[in-house]
């Protein structure tokens, strides 16, 4: 009788426990605002996939919260004397999630896999372009990437056709190529082949991506069981989930939500903020809208926006004015960049000089952007109305349409941002404003600017290179080819019992040191 009762009690307790969930070691629950498109380390491109994959795959180096470059898979790297190559000394004792030991040949194999003909790899492919023989592999002429030589198990030599001084900080994702051979093209859904602190476990579309802690991680096994990236497209829902204890970390995507969090004393106490590695600028295509050919018009539009008021007002302090095209904290930033004043009087004067007093004579103008940023452009438009007397309609576009037209250089006027993929100012300057860059969406073209950037690309010395950056930046700004407007502040909210979560300018650092009390 007694034992029966006890059994029943035990059963009930067990049931209760299973509903209550484990208390001690458990998963870290983080929100992501959409499904990652792909959890393939080769093809990934979007930020969300990056958030997940950074915990699974690693590169030679990594970045800390201050933007400092730290060794990761490589312990040390030295440039070849002719500046046309690098030698990497890799970290010993690193294991793949598959159990194999990591070595120099794996790096080479990963590069070769990225270069396979028909590869869908994106930026990573771009980063490999200067390696000797990359073109041949891409064209299918050979499978051997000539420019990469395995010196020993842990030493690697890479040769370039042109100097690439930033190569060691590129965020590659080195993986165990063995599994690609074994498991076929969809291998990444079945196994985890990285070296990071967490291994890929499962992806339930629309629900979550789950990572397991990697016990053999060279930096020490993580203190949590794993990470549960809960897919929550609705921001309101994500906050409520955080408040209800269904999330440990709340990644904040929109300005509105960030502001709301900073106004809520309980949430604010848990919040981490850091200035983002993301520029926001005005794109003024001089070919598509004739008045933009007039520098005075470009300047007038730029100085009509009150960057301080906007940072304080619209962003509630969760942004700072951006004057140049490099965000603070990114190597190469120029703290002395000339400030853009808010000068309505001058703006009016400039417009009048250009023949558009009070906006008269200007052809109709629309400023394009995506729906989440409608508040920003609504503010600009109202400023231009108030200051310049110019009516600028808002053109909120659907994402695909917007991107297509942006990439094709068909959008005359827009506001857009650019997020750094690696910590160097060159990322902004070369990708967004170099006339040859596919991402030069305003189709700005300046021979002088291009020349300075080209030169910077092959200048190994940081100080000298930064100087070139500043000259190029000044050239761009003096020409009013664009104007920076603001730098967002990244916000994340972390439960007080969770330690070791670090928000950095380039989003969340890997969760390898996380503990939950």
């Amino acid at each position, binding site marked *: 009788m007694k034992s029966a009762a006890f059994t029943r009690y035990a059963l009930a307790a067990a049931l209760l426990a299973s509903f209550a969930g484990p208390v001690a070691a458990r998963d870290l629950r983080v929100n992501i605002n959409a499904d990652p498109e792909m959890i393939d380390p080769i093809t990934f491109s979007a930020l969300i996939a990056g958030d997940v994959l950074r915990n699974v795959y690693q590169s030679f180096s990594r970045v800390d919260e201050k933007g400092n470059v730290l060794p990761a898979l490589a312990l040390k790297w030295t440039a070849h004397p002719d500046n046309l190559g690098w030698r990497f000394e890799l970290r010993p004792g690193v294991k793949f999630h598959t159990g194999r030991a990591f070595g120099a040949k794996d790096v080479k194999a990963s590069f070769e896999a990225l270069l396979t003909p028909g590869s869908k790899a994106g930026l990573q492919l771009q980063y490999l372009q200067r390696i000797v023989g990359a073109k041949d592999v891409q064209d299918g002429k050979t499978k051997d990437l000539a420019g990469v030589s395995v010196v020993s198990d842990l030493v690697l030599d890479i040769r370039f056709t042109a100097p690439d001084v930033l190569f060691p900080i590129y965020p590659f994702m080195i993986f165990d190529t063995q599994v690609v051979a074994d498991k076929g093209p969809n291998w990444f859904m079945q196994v985890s082949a990285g070296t990071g602190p967490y291994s890929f476990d499962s992806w339930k579309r629309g629900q979550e991506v789950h990572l397991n802690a990697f016990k053999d991680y060279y930096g020490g096994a993580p203190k949590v069981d794993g990470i549960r990236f809960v897919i929550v497209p609705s921001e309101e829902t994500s906050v*409520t989930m955080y408040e209800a204890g269904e999330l440990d970390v709340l990644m904040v995507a929109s300005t509105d939500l960030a502001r709301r969090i900073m106004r809520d004393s309980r949430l604010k106490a848990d919040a981490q903020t850091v200035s983002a590695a993301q520029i926001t600028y005005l794109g003024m295509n001089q070919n598509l809208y004739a008045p933009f050919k007039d520098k005075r018009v470009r300047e007038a539009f730029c100085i009509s926006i009150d960057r301080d008021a906007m940072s304080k007002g619209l962003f509630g302090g969760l942004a700072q004015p951006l004057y140049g095209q490099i965000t603070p904290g990114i190597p190469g930033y120029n703290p002395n960049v000339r400030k853009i004043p808010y000068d309505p009087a001058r703006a009016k004067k400039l417009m009048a000089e250009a023949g558009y007093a009070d906006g008269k004579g200007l052809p109709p103008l629309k400023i394009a952007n995506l729906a989440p940023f409608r508040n920003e452009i609504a503010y600009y438009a109202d400023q231009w109305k108030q200051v310049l007397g110019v009516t600028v309609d808002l053109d909120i576009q659907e994402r695909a349409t917007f991107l297509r037209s942006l990439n094709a250089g068909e959008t005359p006027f827009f506001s857009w941002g650019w997020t750094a993929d690696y910590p160097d100012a060159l990322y902004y300057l070369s990708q967004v404003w170099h006339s040859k860059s596919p991402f030069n969406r305003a189709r700005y073209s300046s021979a002088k600017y291009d020349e300075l950037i080209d030169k910077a690309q092959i200048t190994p010395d940081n100080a000298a290179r930064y100087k070139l950056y500043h000259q190029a930046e000044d050239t761009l700004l003096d020409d009013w080819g664009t104007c920076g407007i603001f730098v967002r502040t990244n916000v994340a909210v972390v439960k007080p019992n969770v330690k070791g979560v670090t928000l950095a300018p380039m989003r969340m650092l890997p969760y390898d040191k996380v503990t939950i009390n």
Partner: protein
Amino acid sequence: MSAYVVRRLLGLLPVLAAAIVLTFAANQFVPGDPVTVMLGDQGGNVELEQKLRREYGLDRPLPVQFADYLAKLARGDFGLSFRYPSVPVTQVIRDALWISPSLAAAALVLALPIGISLGIVAALRRNTLADTGIILVLVAGLSIPNFALAAFFVWIFALKLGWAPVAGWTSWRHAVLPVALLAIPAAAYLARLARTFMLEVLQQDYVRTARAKGLPERLVVWRHSLRNVLVPILTVCGVIFGTLITGTVVIETIFNIPGLGRIAIDSIFARDYPVTMAIVMLFTFFYAIINFIVDVLYGIVDPRIRISR
């Protein structure tokens, strides 16, 4: 009976055929090239773009694309998703398939008894304060946008009272608030219908007959009147189910439920048109099926249709 069922089933075909043609056509007019979406920020990569176009068959003439689409459809193959590169549509929606219809069905099952009893009570108390009160509540239930009500419910029931989880889809408890929210307007609508029908039925001669027979009010209302209210209500169940299925779009988004409704929105916004097409077709299919079931049930409930002379 079976001939009737077959005839009704055949009647579904043109609707489904139209669904196929319309979804295909609609997606041709959608701005924003899916390949551009897939490329994202890599817009400049011409080679990759061409490769994707080839892989997805977007480089072929439209009629060929359509023929190919039909051929694949016949094999239950909806093609590849655009948003999740190289992933078959069937895989994207497989797990989500039954979530929306289940939510809608649960909401309907919940709404039917509540709505009908409310409506009948209001009808029996016509023009009293109780009736006016019920009507006001019903109209409010129909008038408050679901997304606003959802925010309120989450705040009260999930945050303040902790009765249900905020969002997600791992246990039955996650269905509580969504189903309740879906059921509210449905119940309100049903109640209004039930009230109208009941008022009508109460004026019927056969109700007078039942009273003249000396039947107690209980039997007059719940036997003679209710059945006659249920028959017309049954016919609108199909329409209500359709609205509920549509309602899942918003509810699933708010409650983070990985059902077809949310995938539909996600895929419309992501220009994932193979997935959109598949979902619209599935919704149409569900709707058609439920209407078919309603028709058959109608035949069973109403003897005037059931018995062949």
